[in-house]
């Protein structure tokens, strides 16, 4: 009996030690060698990386993305966005959460281009969905009055701030109230809508800024999956992760072209990170991506997922 007790004590102690050490340790640089056929000089196809369950993964916000997209010189096109009237189609919590992400992305797109009529309309749609999802408490009660006031004053910067802060508040509220699976669906819906908008703003043009920004979403898809992985015990999250698999695999087929050596310099109090590889998207890959995204987005906005 004493021997058994000793065994249990050891097991319990090992459990504690493992539990605590998984919180993070000084990491030894990971090195991995991928053998590539001879004569492949400048491009590399990387395997899908294994996601580390102990790592925290973050996904960029739609506001941030559209601030970058605007700089590519594309024009606003409101006709490609999800119509506010579609809100009637979303009766399940899953579809409400996915389309909260979609509408928020549409709001971010409209805010980036100061499209006032659309901004008001999408704020209104988000308000209805936030009531349905039980997160309206998270949002500033006076937000709609503020939006209207800023629209009257044509204050684009404040509108952008309000749109960004609304997302941050909803995100924080869900996290705080342990509603991670709802948050995961919102983030995924938003990401798909961002991709849909980007792939419908122009035709494929090799080396263009817009295509470069689309290719760079390869970096985000890994973080998105890592973020969703935390909530995959929820059947709704697991289902949409499955729907995303084809898009994820396509992104991993994008090649990376070696660039300049990486450097970090300093200009005043701002550091500048330079160099590194560039992600390359072929015309065929672009068309395939556009098709896959449009199909998944259609299922989301039709409330058929």
């Amino acid at each position, binding site marked *: 009996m004493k021997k058994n*007790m000793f065994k*249990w*004590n050891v097991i*319990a102690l090992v459990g*504690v030690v493992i*539990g*605590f050490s998984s*919180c*993070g*340790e*000084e*990491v030894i*640089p*990971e*090195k*991995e*060698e991928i*053998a*590539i*056929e*001879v004569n*492949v*000089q400048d491009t*590399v196809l990387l395997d899908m990386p294994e996601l580390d369950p102990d*790592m*925290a993964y*973050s*996904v*960029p916000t739609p*506001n*941030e993305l559209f*601030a*970058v997209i605007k700089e590519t010189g594309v024009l606003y096109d409101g006709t490609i966005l999800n119509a506010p009237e579609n809100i009637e189609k979303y009766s399940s919590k899953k579809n409400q959460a996915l389309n909260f992400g979609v509408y928020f992305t549409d709001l971010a797109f409209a805010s980036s281009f100061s499209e006032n009529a659309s901004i008001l309309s999408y704020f209104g749609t988000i308000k209805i969905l936030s009531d349905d999802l039980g997160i309206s408490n998270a949002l500033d009660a006076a937000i709609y009055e503020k939006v209207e006031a800023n629209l009257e004053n044509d204050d684009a910067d404040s509108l*952008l*701030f309000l749109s*960004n802060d609304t997302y*941050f508040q909803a*995100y*924080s*509220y869900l996290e*705080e109230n*342990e509603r991670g699976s709802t948050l995961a669906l919102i983030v995924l819906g938003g990401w798909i809508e961002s991709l849909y908008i980007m792939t419908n703003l122009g035709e494929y043009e090799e080396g263009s800024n817009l295509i470069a920004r689309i290719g*760079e979403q390869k*970096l985000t898809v890994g*973080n998105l999956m890592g973020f969703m992985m935390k909530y995959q015990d929820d059947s709704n999250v697991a289902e949409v992760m499955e729907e995303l698999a084809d898009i994820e695999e396509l992104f991993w087929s994008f090649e*990376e072209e*070696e*660039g300049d050596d*990486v450097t*970090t310099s300093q*200009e*005043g*109090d*701002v*550091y*500048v*990170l330079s*160099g*590194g*590889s560039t992600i390359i998207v072929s015309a065929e890959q672009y068309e395939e991506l556009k098709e896959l995204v449009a199909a998944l987005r259609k299922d989301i906005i039709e409330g058929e997922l």
Partner: protein
Amino acid sequence: MKRLFTNLFLVALVIAPSALFSQNCRNIVKYCGHAKRDGFLRNGQSLSGAFAQGDTAEITFVVYKDMEYRISLCSPTHDELDGTFEFKIVEQITKPAWKDVITYETETEYDDYGEELEVRTEKKSRRRVYNKVDVVRYDNKKDEDAQEFIFISDKTRKLTIKVFIPLSEGEEEGQGLEAETYACVGLLIEHQPGPTTGFSR
């Protein structure tokens, strides 16, 4: 058997406060100083969590080309930690290299009497290999322990921040497994469109 339950109870007693603590840390980042007046917007990639003091936490995030970012840390539950965080910004890059590979081929030959002989020949070839290497882009220890990092990037890239959560004054590493060794830490990421020309703000 009674001792077993006593031991499990003790283990639960140790773990429960940290789990509870972990819940209380949710969204703690909202208490971190926000640089709104400098034009920064709070970024959804910011994180909150309960971390063991003396450990290193890792968070990976994506930064866009030509956006300006500000990264800072705070611990509203452990004020004494503010100003003492150590952090590194790391980027995993792929470096191409050539690797000499030696392979052996076995051929069958026949001697003068018609007997089979196995001849092993060495073949040298070069293979292109791609090594993943972690490059430290910023280390606050080399910047007078600065507690914020403001940067801009010429490319969209994925970065990992490794934050060392220091021990509170007077505590020693490996002191025990008490809940007090945990701290709520907020990692605040903020962004704003970067300057179109030059990098000074």
